[in-house]
């Protein structure tokens, strides 16, 4: 029988739909009887949503600026190298 600790171990696989049919059935059976594990699955889902809401805010502006500068230099070098207009 699946115990709470076993369920905690495979909780992400359950959330992501990565478990086989038999395992999913035993998780569902366990969740029907166990409020604590239902709460854990709900909490883990909420944590994932929270992380997603958060990580979408991150951007290293300093790195982006350095990359822009290097790309810009390279593009300009190419443009002047390809310049076929009269000298």
């Amino acid at each position, binding site marked *: 029988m699946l*115990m*709470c*600790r*076993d369920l*905690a*171990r*495979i*909780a*992400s*696989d359950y959330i*992501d739909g*990565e478990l086989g049919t038999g395992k999913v059935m035993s998780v569902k059976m366990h969740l029907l009887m166990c409020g*604590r*594990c239902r*709460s*854990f699955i*709900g*909490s*883990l*889902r*909420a*944590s*994932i*949503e*929270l*992380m*997603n*809401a*958060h*990580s*979408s*805010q*991150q*951007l*290293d502006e300093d*790195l*982006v600026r*350095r*990359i*822009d500068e*290097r*790309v*810009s230099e*390279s*593009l300009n070098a*190419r*443009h002047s190298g390809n310049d076929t207009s009269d000298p």
Partner: protein
Amino acid sequence: METTTHQSDDDILITGLKSGNQGAFREAVRLYTPGMMAVARFYLDHASAEEIVQDCWVTVIDAVQTFEGRSGLKTWLHRIVANRAKNHLRKTKREVNADFSEALDPDLAARFAPNGRWATPPSLKTNESAQALMENGALSDCLDRHLSALPETQRSALMLYEAHQHKSDDVCNILDVSASNLRVLLHRARQKIFLMVETFQETGEC
């Protein structure tokens, strides 16, 4: 920042990149650099990862001419970074150091009784939406700190799978890990975030 674009948006961007348009490059750099850094950091220290990602963008100026769109632009860029990072790792004779041995975080494992039932059950209240919770600046800062404290391998796996919405197969391919090892990395990272949010909600402290 939105990291996934509609196909048509991607097409417009790719046309811009192929024609060497500076605006297109600026847009692509903002859009794709965080994901590229997540890939590079899986393999390398921060300074080397930044160097590799910068080099990749310069390489992309020419390489994008041969981009055929079989994979999305994001996946293509992430593969370029992964290949470069792996080469760099080989040259420096280092290895990725990751622990795939146990799916359960030790702090969570300690909350079960010997019979396998919860001894200290979860206490996180999930009635507020993620967006509403993120309006709490202190929680956002705390999440930052905990995300930074995750092992690089876990953080990269989490970023690519969640924030950059790669399929499992793509993440395994880019990070060179098996499907079961990816599951361990993801689950370990998620448990850490869960534990952090739970503590924050209970105590108001990070």
